[in-house]
Each structure stands twice: as structure tokens, then as C-alpha cells.
């Protein structure tokens, strides 16, 4: 089976600035990949490249078997993305926003009700105009679209931002369910203590490059067994715990 996503030496420009300067990344179906790194490290750019929003200027890339260089628009039909800002139509209700997104994506409208219940926006909230929602509730609407659409690749940019404790638990549950259902989930986050326990691999970025790749088996128990792979290096056992990895 081909990997769900594969970047080889990916270079991408944001204007004239190199947002990515040769990123390698491979993930299998059903994996959760966490992108870590400081602000400006390239996390969002990786997500945008994988979504087909940012073109590759160099290197190669494939998402779910579709070439990112030649068929970016086709990739967009296969991925679902939750970005920094929830782009909703304020005058439409929560349900109308989800229904519109689902109709546009040729999704199953029968899943709208279920998706809204899953993200805690059932009842009266589904008929509330999106303009009256809090930032956290708006993020839940974005998540509801993904839950209803069930894309094969989920791209989440700081999904825990603006959310209360219940909302953060909801995001974790949705990520786990998506991966359990065979979807690949790529999460860019500063909150490693929250997302790493769910991750199959953690990719640390810096300056548009991959600084480190590691698989966090046993990370929650103190890091024993976590493996690390730098760029062009064989996997090595990480010495010490992961305590210093959290860049939040």
C-alpha cells in the first residue's frame, strides 16, 4: 500500500521567502503525525503544501497517490483542513454552514446531525448564526465539517487553540476516532504534552527543515523506547526523556 502522504525534499515559497527548504515526510494510512517547532518553523506551510494550497517549488510530493506538483486541485478534494481561523459565514446558522460545506464537497448530508452532536453543537446551537458563536464554538463547527466529510487526510493547525477543557478532550477524541477509522491525521501544535501521546510520529521542524523525527512509543511513561531520526540519519534511540521537547 502506498503511503498516505510523502514529501521528498519539498521546497515551498511564501512570496520570495522559502517557507520550506527541503522537507522529507512520510506517513501511512491511519497514522497520527505531530508537527512540532517554534513559530515560523514551517508547520503551517507543511499543512498548506499537503492541502494543495501552497505549490511545491522543488522536490516531490504525493498525497493519497495524487501528485502535488501536477494535480494540486485534485488533492483538495481528498483532504480536510482546520486552519487558524474558522472561516464561517456569520449570517448562516451552524447547521447551514456545515450543510453548505458538505454539499460543496459532495458529502453525505445525512451525517450533518451526527457530526454536530459529536462536536457538542446539537440542540439549539445548530440553529444559532455562526456570527454569535465564541471562537471555541466556531472551531467546533470546523471540526464538525471534517467529522461529517470523513476525508482520508486530516490537517489540523493548532486544533486545541481557543478551546476549553471539554473542547480539547473533544479534539483528542475526534483525532483518535479519525485515525482508528483509517484516516491519516497531521497536527501542527505547540501543545506537545496533549498531542504526542496520540502520535505515531513527531516531526520537529525548524527554519523550514526537518530537525528531527521520532516515534513516541512509551513517551507518556517517560520517554523510554522513543526513537529518533534526524535528516538523512538512521533511527537512533533517544537518550533522556522528552521533557525538553515541548516548545510551547
Amino acid at each position, binding site marked *: 500500500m502506498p503511503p498516505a502522504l510523502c514529501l521528498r525534499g519539498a521546497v515551498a515559497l511564501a*512570496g520570495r521567502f522559502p517557507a520550506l527548504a527541503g522537507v522529507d515526510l512520510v506517513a501511512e494510512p491511519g497514522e497520527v503525525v505531530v508537527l512540532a517547532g517554534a513559530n515560523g518553523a514551517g508547520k503551517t506551510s507543511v499543512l*498548506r503544501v499537503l*492541502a*494543495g*494550497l501552497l505549490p511545491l517549488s522543488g522536490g516531490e510530493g504525493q498525497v493519497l497517490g495524487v501528485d502535488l506538483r501536477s494535480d494540486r486541485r485534485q488533492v*483538495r*478534494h481528498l*483532504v*480536510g*483542513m482546520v*486552519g*487558524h*481561523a*474558522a*472561516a464561517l*459565514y456569520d*449570517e*448562516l446558522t451552524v447547521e*447551514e454552514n456545515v450543510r*453548505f*460545506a458538505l*454539499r*460543496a*464537497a*459532495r458529502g453525505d448530508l445525512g451525517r450533518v446531525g451526527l457530526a454536530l452532536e459529536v462536536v457538542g453543537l446539537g440542540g439549539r446551537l445548530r440553529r444559532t*448564526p455562526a456570527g454569535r458563536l465564541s471562537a471555541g464554538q466556531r472551531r467546533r463547527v470546523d471540526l464538525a465539517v471534517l467529522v461529517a466529510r470523513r476525508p482520508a487526510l486530516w490537517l489540523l493547525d493548532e486544533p486545541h487553540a481557543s478551546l476549553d477543557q471539554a473542547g480539547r478532550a473533544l479534539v483528542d477524541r475526534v483525532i483518535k476516532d479519525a485515525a482508528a477509522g483509517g484516516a491519516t491525521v497531521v497536527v501542527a501544535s505547540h501543545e506537545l504534552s496533549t498531542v504526542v501521546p496520540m502520535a505515531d510520529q513527531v516531526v520537529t521542524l525548524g527554519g523550514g527543515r526537518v530537525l528531527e523525527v521520532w516515534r513516541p512509543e512509551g513517551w507518556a511513561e517517560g520517554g523510554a523506547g522513543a526513537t529518533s531520526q534526524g535528516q538523512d540519519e538512521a533511527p537512533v534511540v533517544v537518550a533522556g526523556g522528552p521533557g525538553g521537547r515541548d516548545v510551547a
Partner: protein
Amino acid sequence: MWRDAWLVAGKDLRIELRSRVLLHQVLPFAALVLFLFAFALGPDHRVLSGAAPGLFWVAVLFLTVLAVQRSAAIEAGPGARDTLRLSGLEPPGVFLGKTLAVVVELAVVEVLLGVGVDLLYGAGIREPGLLVGASLAGTVGLAAAGTLYGSLTQSVRGRETLLPFLLLPVAVPVLLAGSHLWQAALRGRDVSSALSGAPVVGNGPWLALLTAFSLAYLALGVVVFGPIQEAP
């Protein structure tokens, strides 16, 4: 493409109905324009009725700028462009849908403007079919051109002032042809013949110009709307 167009048009019209911008801002603006023109030209009904076609189309041009700015603003929030690109909607469908929504909004305003022109300026309608045909062809052209330039200026600083600069000059053919055809529809003859007292002749070329303008901008928008959305 057509499915996406209906979807986008329905969404935009629903948003406009809920926001009530048309009711609270655009319609009062249209009424204000009619009254201001009437004040500027004086109480002579012959002058007013003679100028009515041109005034109507100038008012429609201003209202098109408002409607297009509003239409572009719907997709202008943070992350809205990326969301639209990821939505699965075909760009030509988005363009046609947004154009259709603007056409419907302008049509509503034009009906009220037409009634206002008739009542306030005393312009009697002789050929309603020609009036409706000219209005429809001109409105489609203006909406298509406006939607196209609205998307071009969407991510530009000072877009509110840039859009009229781009749209108004290219709308001159609509202003010319629309005014001539309205003149003919109101008086039962074309402008030149109205002045000379000759029988009705020569509306066909003006109607053809309006139709060609509309089709050209519809085709251009269908082709270039996608690349515009992809521009960095």
C-alpha cells in the same frame, strides 16, 4: 459547474436576506440617487424624462459597485480564501454563482428604480419587452464584470476605491447601449430617431452590444476566476 453555481448563489442570497444590507443600505441609496438627480435637474418634467434612461443606468452602475463589494466581502474573512479553495467547489461555478446572486439583487433594485423613474421623472414605458431585455442583458454584464474585478481586488489594500476605478470605465458600453435602449423603450423609438422624429430603427446593434458585453465577461470570468483565486 452549474450545480456549484446554484449552491453559491443560494448561499449568497440567503446571506444577503439575513444581513438586510439590500433593504437597509442599497435601496435607500437608490432612492437617494433618484431624488438627488431630480433636484439637480430641476422640476422640468421634459428634462427629467429625457434624462431618465441615463440616470437609471448611472444609478445602476453605482449600485453594482455596492452589490459587488458586498458579494466579495462575504468571502473576505480570515482564512476564507483557503476555505473556498478547499471546499471542492469548481471556480467557474463559484464565479457564476456569485454573478447570479448579484444579478438577482440588482434586478430587485432595478424594478424599484424603474418604478421610481416612472413616477418621479414621468417617463412612460412604451415597449416593456425591450426595457426588460435591455435591463437583463446589461445587468448580467455588469454583474459578471463586477464579480470578476471584485475578486481581482479582494486581497488588495484599498479595494473599496480600486473596484470603482476598474469597473466604471469598462462599463461604458453598458451605459451607452442601456441608455439608448431604455430611451427607445420609453419613447418607442431609438435616440437618434427620437431626436429627429423618425420611426423606430436601430435597436438591434445596441442590444447585440449589451449581449456581447455580457457573454464576453461571463466567458472571461469562467476562464480566469480560478487562476485569480490561486494567485499568491
